[in-house]
Each structure stands twice: as structure tokens, then as C-alpha cells.
């Protein structure tokens, strides 16, 4: 190792440690300011007060460039961050590779849709319900059902390890999607379920808070994320978190030291699933319409990409990853318009489309590859996980 890299690492270490070394009130104050900024992010006043130039009449906001939809993109980032946080428990903490995580999102979304929509078949055909239930009541049910499906999936499959588990979970998500697509009896196939309920609440002037405007949904999901972070941290710093790390590092040794490995793996699965279901129910509360097209396999992969990009085993990493995988393609979609970049170039008489809009997934994919090559532990890694990864690399290819 050259002295330069040592110095660089020491500097990085300092940055993190320096924050940790601040007195506790200072740390809390910094976090509070940061959170307040997050809440203000989609409002125009925020940028005006900070002195960002806003192009007149365009409605564009800096950082996000399609103006009025900034809150919408942030909301989408929000439920992806929740998904990433959930998968982080399963993959980052307990080390279980789950490729079908979006299945739990689907369970949560469909539960809310079925119970809150007046056009749900539970009401129109089967008369199980007399009238649609309020959204808020259905969220705990959605979480419980997602958790139950996590347990049902985990019970037989968590005896498997590694690749085998990945395949089974992949199958699970596909089963949910295909059943939703092809079955008419309750989920209504591709026609889906319209008029899904929204969260409750009205402004003082009597207007519903949660309607078409995205900003309140963003505030809601942000609040939920903060609560989830606290709960996950409680778990990570307890007997449960220790058991997960032990299982991840050496499952056999953990079991021989008295860790009920199966029980805690199942818990990791159930908690991840519950968070996934919560995310799905928040999404359904906004989406108004739920059908099977939302739950394609790419979404599961995207959540996985978010966790790995951010850094498995780290809450900050999951948040960063979930944000990037949604925000970056959206930002690329319109950044060209704002800066007036050319959309086409002509080379030897051939017009080539080079607008960031059409190339956004190419750019995004290339960036993912670059990050994974140069920073396999993720952008904001958990120290322990990063070290484990390094050890494993050494096992594969001894250096020096």
C-alpha cells in the first residue's frame, strides 16, 4: 500500500470519525437541520431562499429538472429507499440473497388495493366487504400479510443457502406477478384495481391532503423512512443484530455457539418482507391504480442494485442506493433540456440520438458497472461488511 492511499484512507476515516467525535447535541442538531432540509426539498421557496436561480416560467428546480414533478420523483425515491432498507435487513444484515424482494411490495400494494377500492371484487362480486375500508386501517393488514408471506416463503426455503435461496425467492416474485396477471377471480389481471384509497386528512380549507399533489406523499414516506431507520437501528444494536452478523460470518459456528440460526434468519426475512409490504401500501395509497405490470422482475433487481450500490449492511448505503437508482435516470431524462444540450449529432450523414433522455439507462448501467469495479463494497459501506468482502477476495485471488 502506498503512503498516498494510506493518507487518503486516513482522511476518509477522519471525516466519519470527526462527525462521531462531535458532542452529542451538535450531532443531533446537524441531523435535525439535515432532516428539515429533506422535508423542504420539493418546495420552490426552499430554492429561492437558498438563492438558486430558477429559470422563469419553466417551473424547473435545480437538482431535479422537470419542475413540478420533483416531489413525485422524490416520492418514488422514498418508497425505493424503504424497499432498499428492507432488503438491507435480509441481505446486508443476515446475508441472505433474496432476488424476489419486490414480491412483498406486490403483496402490500394488492392488499391495500383490494380493501380500499370500491371496485374491488371483494365488494362487487363476493360481498365480503360492505364498503371500502379506510387506507390507514389497511396498512397494518398489508404489513402483516407481507410478513406472513415472508414467513411462509422462508419456512421451507431458509434451510437452503446462497444460490439456491436466490433461485427460490426469484420464483416467488414471479409467481406473485404471474398469478396477478393471469387470474381474474380477485386481482382482476391486467385490468387491475382502480380507485384505490388514499391516506386520510384534510387541509384547513377542507381539501384532501393526499390527492394528486405529490408533496404530501413525499412527506409521508419520508416520515415513515425515519421511523423505520430508528427501528432497524434498534434491532442492529441488539442480540438480534449480533446474531445476524454471526450468521453472516460463520453460520455453523454461530449455531454451535447457541444462536438459533433458523429463527433469526426467518425473522430477518419477515422484517424485510414487512418493510417491503409497507412500501407497497404507501405506493398503492398514491398510485390510485394497481395492476400486475408494476411488479416486473426488473424492480427486484433494481432494489438489489440499490442495496449493493449503496453498500450492503449499511443504513446510509441503502438510502443512498435507493435514491440514486431512481433519481439518476430521472435526472438524466431532462437534464439535457435544461442545459440545452444537443439531442442529435450527425456523423457521416447518420443522425445519432445522443440526448441524455434516451441514453439514460445506458449511462445509468455504465455507472453501476464502474462503481462495482472500483468500489465493490458500495458507496457508503458498512465497515464490517467491507472488510468481509476484502477477506473473501483474498481467498479467491491471493495478492502479493
Amino acid at each position, binding site marked *: 500500500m502506498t503512503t498516498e492511499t494510506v493518507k487518503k484512507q486516513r482522511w476518509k476515516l477522519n471525516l466519519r470519525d470527526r462527525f462521531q467525535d462531535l458532542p452529542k447535541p451538535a450531532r443531533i442538531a446537524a441531523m435535525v437541520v439535515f432532516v428539515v432540509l429533506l422535508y423542504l426539498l420539493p418546495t420552490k421557496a426552499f430554492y429561492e431562499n437558498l438563492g438558486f436561480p430558477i429559470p422563469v416560467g419553466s417551473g424547473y428546480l435545480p437538482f431535479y429538472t422537470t419542475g413540478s414533478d420533483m416531489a413525485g420523483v422524490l416520492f418514488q425515491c422514498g418508497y425505493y429507499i424503504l424497499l432498499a432498507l428492507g432488503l438491507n435487513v435480509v441481505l446486508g444484515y443476515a446475508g441472505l440473497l433474496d432476488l424476489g424482494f419486490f414480491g412483498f411490495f406486490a403483496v402490500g400494494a394488492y392488499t391495500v388495493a383490494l380493501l380500499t377500492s370500491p371496485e374491488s371484487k371483494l365488494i362487487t362480486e363476493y360481498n365480503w366487504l360492505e364498503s371500502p375500508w379506510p387506507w390507514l386501517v389497511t396498512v397494518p393488514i398489508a404489513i402483516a400479510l407481507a410478513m406472513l408471506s415472508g414467513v411462509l416463503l422462508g419456512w421451507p426455503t431458509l434451510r437452503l443457502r446462497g444460490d439456491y435461496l436466490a433461485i427460490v425467492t426469484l420464483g416467488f416474485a414471479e409467481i406473485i406477478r404471474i398469478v396477478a396477471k393471469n387470474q381474474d377471480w380477485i386481482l382482476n389481471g391486467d385490468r387491475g384495481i382502480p380507485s384505490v384509497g388514499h391516506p386520510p386528512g384534510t387541509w384547513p380549507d377542507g381539501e384532501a391532503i393526499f390527492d394528486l399533489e405529490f408533496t404530501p406523499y413525499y412527506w409521508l414516506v419520508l416520515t415513515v423512512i425515519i421511523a423505520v431507520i430508528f*427501528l432497524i437501528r*434498534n*434491532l442492529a444494536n*441488539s*442480540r*438480534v*443484530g*449480533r*446474531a445476524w*452478523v*454471526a450468521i453472516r*460470518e*460463520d453460520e*455453523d*459456528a*454461530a*449455531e*454451535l*455457539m*447457541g*444462536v*438459533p*440460526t433458523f*429463527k433469526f434468519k426467518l*425473522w430477518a426475512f419477515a*422484517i424485510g418482507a414487512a418493510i417491503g409490504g409497507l412500501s407497497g401500501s404507501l405506493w398503492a395509497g398514491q398510485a390510485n391504480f394497481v395492476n400486475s405490470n408494476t411488479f416486473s422482475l426488473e424492480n427486484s433487481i433494481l432494489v438489489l442494485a440499490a442495496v449493493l450500490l449503496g453498500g450492503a449492511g449499511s443504513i446510509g448505503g441503502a438510502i443512498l442506493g435507493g435514491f440514486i437508482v431512481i433519481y439518476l435516470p430521472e435526472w438524466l431524462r431532462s437534464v439535457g433540456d435544461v442545459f440545452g444540450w444537443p439531442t442529435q449529432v450527425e456523423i457521416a450523414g447518420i443522425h445519432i440520438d445522443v440526448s441524455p433522455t434516451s441514453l439514460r439507462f445506458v449511462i445509468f448501467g455504465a455507472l453501476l458497472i464502474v462503481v462495482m469495479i472500483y468500489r465493490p463494497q458500495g458507496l457508503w459501506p458498512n465497515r*464490517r*461488511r467491507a*472488510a*468481509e468482502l476484502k*477477506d473473501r477476495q483474498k481467498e479467491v485471488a491471493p495478492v502479493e
Partner: protein
Amino acid sequence: MSERKALLEVDNVTLRFGGVVALNQVDFTLYEGEILGLIGPNGAGKTTCFNAMTGVYLPTEGQIRFKGEQVSGKKRNKITKMGMARTFQNIRLFPEMTALENVLVGADAHNSTSVPTALLRLPKHWREERQSKARALELLDFVGITGRSDDLARNLSYGDQRRLEIARALATNPALLCLDEPAAGFNPAEKVALLELIKKIRDSGVTVLLIEHDMRLVMGVTDRIVVLEFGRKIAEGTPEEVRDNPKVVAAYLGVPDAA
């Protein structure tokens, strides 16, 4: 020898892997409060015997009883909870956890905090964390690595890692501690220290089963010795008896050609 209470009974255990007979009707008893040595040349089946006891393998025939209760077929973490703890021949700590956390994992064997308690930070969580931490620090002190509690296990020296493994096993509050070649790779001074530690563990009321290659260590510390060769028990007795047993000598040194 007065009345002795059997702690572990290995009752005619046979273990086959396909055609290979790893253990062949092995039969011995471990009494409370003693240090029993399990020795034998390489490949004699010592570690296999350990694995059968701790639930890693299921005996093909025969029974293993611990405190009078059948062990075979029980879950491994349950066996640990019953009071049998072990270390590993090739160290298997949790490398990226600190020394303290490693011991805490062992101490957790008797904690009942689970997800709801930890999630809501109920009093039980705090109580168990506090008690386990105190116990873990005590054990780090007991095995002689005070002051290394916040170091990652992988950064400890080889000898300290072996000690940490013992502390982690002791944290599960075992009645029986099984040490699988704890002195492997030790220099003579470290071996002496280990000898003292093993005696100290016995004096604290824990029965010890010791697998060891180093004859001098075994002779110096054990009350009784069981000798295995090719999966079969060939001798059992006090160190003196075993040392003078011609079968044992033959197993270790070979039989002289007819002379």
C-alpha cells in the same frame, strides 16, 4: 474414586460415511469435574467424535447422552444451551466482530431477547445487554485478554484468538467444555499458560474434554485419557496407565519389526 456422576456418556457410537467407518463402537464416559483427554494419531476420529457430540453429525449407531438426555438428533443450538460448548481445531471466530461481541454472541445463548423486545427497547433488552456485557468482560479477563475487548477478532494474535474462542465458549455457561486442539501452534511458554487456564476452568466447576496432539500437555493436565485409533477406542485410563499401554505406544510409535 468416590461416587462420580456421569456427565456425558458416549455409548457404543458408530459413525459411517459411506464405506468409511470414522467411529467404530466408541464407548466412554465423562464424569463431572474431571479433565478427560481424547488422543490418538492423525485421522483417528477425535474431531469426528467431537462433531457427533455437538450435533454436527448424527451417529449411525449408538447413543450420546448428556446429563442423561439423548443428544443425537437435537438441534445444535439446543445442545449448546443444554450446557455443551466447544472450540474449533481451526479457529472459527467471527473475524469482523470485536472480541467483546464474539463473547456476547456466546452469552446470548441464554438470553431470550428477540425481535419485539429489541425493536421496542423493552427493559429486558437493557437488562440482558448489561448482564451479558459484564459477564463477557469478566470472561475476557478470565482467559487473560483484558484490554483487547474492542479489537476486531481478526486483529488479535493467534494465541489471543485461541483464548478468545475459549472465552466465547465459556460465555454459553457450559457444564462441559470441549477443546479441540487448543494448543496447536503454541510455543512452550504459551502451552504452559494454556495448561494453567485449563486447570482454572476445571476449578471453576466446568468439566473439560480435551483433544490434543501434544502428549506432554495431555499428560500434565488430564485426569483420565481415552485413546482412539482408526475410529476405535484402544485404551482408557489415567495418564500413567495409558502411557505404559503397549497398544498406545504402538499406535504412536509403530510396532518394532520382529527383533
